[in-house]
């Protein structure tokens, strides 16, 4: 019994210590690496490294670490080394709020992240209030709109509307006026549905069937049967694997022969691996990173893409994906803004807003006071899957 009491005291002390240390940690600096000379510039990042969005957050973290090392090796920003502090929000909104507050207390110049839309949205109120520039890596357009309430927020992933416009452009080119729209019932599918419905209406395209399914569904035959009975000339799907792959297999199984168009959500090898032969013929808009080798040399992004692919593959022995690309863009946008503006949050924000013709991995960024994403349809290309490979259309 006495032993137990001692243990209890020990535990209590441990917790007291933990509170103290976590308290002190926020007051302390992670101390600028032993680089002599100028004082380091602090940049914070809040990423979904664990939890349900970890597949997004991990390549982003790897990319940021690589870029910070490269930058510091080549002399940093105007001679100042960069001190990059990355925190994990565990894909949780409350944790994201706590994480961004600790970064702001550490006097970071700007915050990168989060990886997914929910946690990014949760951080907005804090960065707006504290006047800290934030560059999100997530897709939802509501992260940067309305701009008047999002003065300090930017993002590098293409908004849904960019992808939607690419698809609408293709539909018009093919003379298709009646489509079926199928989407996954989560924030991603929901965002796609809203953007597509609005754009279709404007462009005289009629959505004749609208079906949804759950991310965990194992069979979409009922939804597809209703699509088959409709006069749709093409099917547009907003989903990510594995449900996107299952849908594609069901689509071939019930003998639908209309064109199948997916969103950029299936732009990874996992989709093809799971859908196998059924994936052949699928058309989708995608960032240029995936088809960098097929892009003509005249494309302004070609050099940036090849550079990123080389660096990343050399360091991590795996090809990079578009999520890492969002991090590449966010980091380099910020670095070039700090280069011009110096270590001042408001000046950095103004400089980010003035970004013009910045050639990144996700596209060529042209920010403006009305557009804090700065990407247009040219940032994406249409590809078709042939024999399990991405083939550039056009």
């Amino acid at each position, binding site marked *: *019994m006495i032993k137990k009491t001692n243990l209890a005291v020990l535990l209590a002390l441990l917790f007291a210590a*933990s509170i103290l240390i*976590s*308290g002190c*940690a926020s007051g302390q600096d992670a101390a600028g690496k032993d680089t002599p000379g100028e004082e380091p510039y602090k940049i914070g990042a809040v990423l979904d490294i664990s*939890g349900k969005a970890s597949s997004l957050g991990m390549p982003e973290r790897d990319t940021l670490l690589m870029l910070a090392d490269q930058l510091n090796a080549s002399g940093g920003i105007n001679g100042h080394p960069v001190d990059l502090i990355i925190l994990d929000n565990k894909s949780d909104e409350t944790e994201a709020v706590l994480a961004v507050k600790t970064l702001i207390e550490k006097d970071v110049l700007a915050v990168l992240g989060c990886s997914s839309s929910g946690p990014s949205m949760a951080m907005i109120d804090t960065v707006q209030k504290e006047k800290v520039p934030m560059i999100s890596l997530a897709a939802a357009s509501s992260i940067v709109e309305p701009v008047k*309430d999002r003065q300090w927020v930017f993002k590098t992933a293409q908004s849904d509307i960019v992808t939607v416009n690419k698809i609408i452009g293709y539909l018009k080119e093919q003379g298709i006026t009646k489509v079926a729209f199928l989407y996954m019932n989560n924030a991603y599918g929901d965002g796609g549905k809203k953007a597509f419905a609005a754009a279709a209406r404007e462009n005289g395209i009629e959505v004749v069937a609208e079906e949804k399914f759950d991310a965990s569904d194992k069979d979409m035959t009922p939804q597809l049967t209703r699509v088959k009975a409709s006069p749709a000339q093409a099917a547009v799907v907003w989903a990510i694997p594995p449900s996107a792959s299952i849908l594609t297999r069901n689509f071939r199984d019930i003998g639908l022969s209309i064109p199948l168009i997916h969103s950029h959500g299936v732009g990874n090898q996992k989709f093809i691996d799971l859908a196998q032969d059924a994936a052949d013929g699928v058309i989708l808009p995608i960032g240029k990173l995936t088809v960098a080798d097929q892009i003509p040399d005249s494309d302004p992004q070609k050099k940036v893409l090849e550079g990123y692919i080389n660096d990343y593959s050399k360091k991590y022995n795996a090809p990079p994906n578009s999520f890492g690309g969002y991090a590449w863009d966010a980091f380099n946008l910020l670095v070039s803004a700090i280069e011009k503006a110096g270590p001042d949050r408001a000046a950095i924000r103004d400089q980010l807003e003035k970004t013009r013709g910045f050639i990144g991995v996700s596209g060529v960024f042209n920010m403006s006071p009305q557009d804090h994403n700065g990407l247009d349809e040219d940032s994406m290309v249409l590809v078709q899957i042939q024999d399990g490979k991405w083939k550039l259309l056009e």
Partner: protein
Amino acid sequence: MWKKAILRPAAVLLLFAVPLLIKSNYLLSILIVIGLYTIIVQGLGILMGYAGQVSFGHAAFFGLGGYTVAILTTRFHWPTVLALPAAALLPGVIAAIIGRPTLKLRELYLALATLGFGILVHIAFTEGKELTGGPSGITGIPYLSIGGLTFDSDIKFFYLVWITLFLILAGINNLVRSRVGRALRAISESEHAAENAGIDTAKLKLQAFIFSALLAGLAGGLYAFYVTFISPSPFGFHASVQFVLMAVIGGLGTFWGPLLGAAVVVTLGEFLRWAVPLVIPGAGGEYQIIFFGLILVLLMIFRPEGLGALGKCLKLSPEKMPGTGIPSKDI
């Protein structure tokens, strides 16, 4: 007794001096989150520790409170000061409706029923289309303002949450010492015995359930005003389990248990966020979860009655240590 009379107000005063001592919004926001969770766990503690009923659905009441505030203020433009009581009331009413049939169930069956309820509500948030904003949630929730005072900073919110919490604590302190409190404790010991002693167990259990839902809803309303954005994801099954965890770690049926439990779970999470990367460079949250689990298992092995019982062990000689889960009269 005189010691207590001085110690408690002193502790309260110290706490209210905290924002003046630490000028850190990060630490304040941790304290705010701890305060919000404590409000929920207080109610859950009454339900679990005193009435002896387990609920795996309290994240749903938490979420209902949050969504009530979000919907009333953004869709119907209610004054924020009216939306907050509504956030507590609605979950209370819903608890009254579902409590009647479900509380007839005992032990595991009740846990399962509340679990099902939690999942149902979560689906309703996701499927609520225009009303709940679906999976994307609701943005642009205004700050709470009461009679010209707008709670738009961490310091103001800290006071709001902790004053609310202390009022609740004072209320609960009286409640557990009253006839109702003793009757509730009798139920947790043996429902049959309590019935034989003339206690209307069904009614009391229902009241405890409604009370805990009210508190969870209130915390949810405050959460919505604090973060000003709401989506279904913080109100899933995982959150319900976390609340039960806090209640158990803190110690069921103890006065300070809920506060301790919430404080330990939140600070441990924050601490591991810093400490784990020091030990294992580049480690993400998945390692933190392992450490977290390990600490919890150790705690449950060596101190199954929770941390709230620690104080008693320090005061009493080991021989007089109270057994598992028996609430002490002396708080």
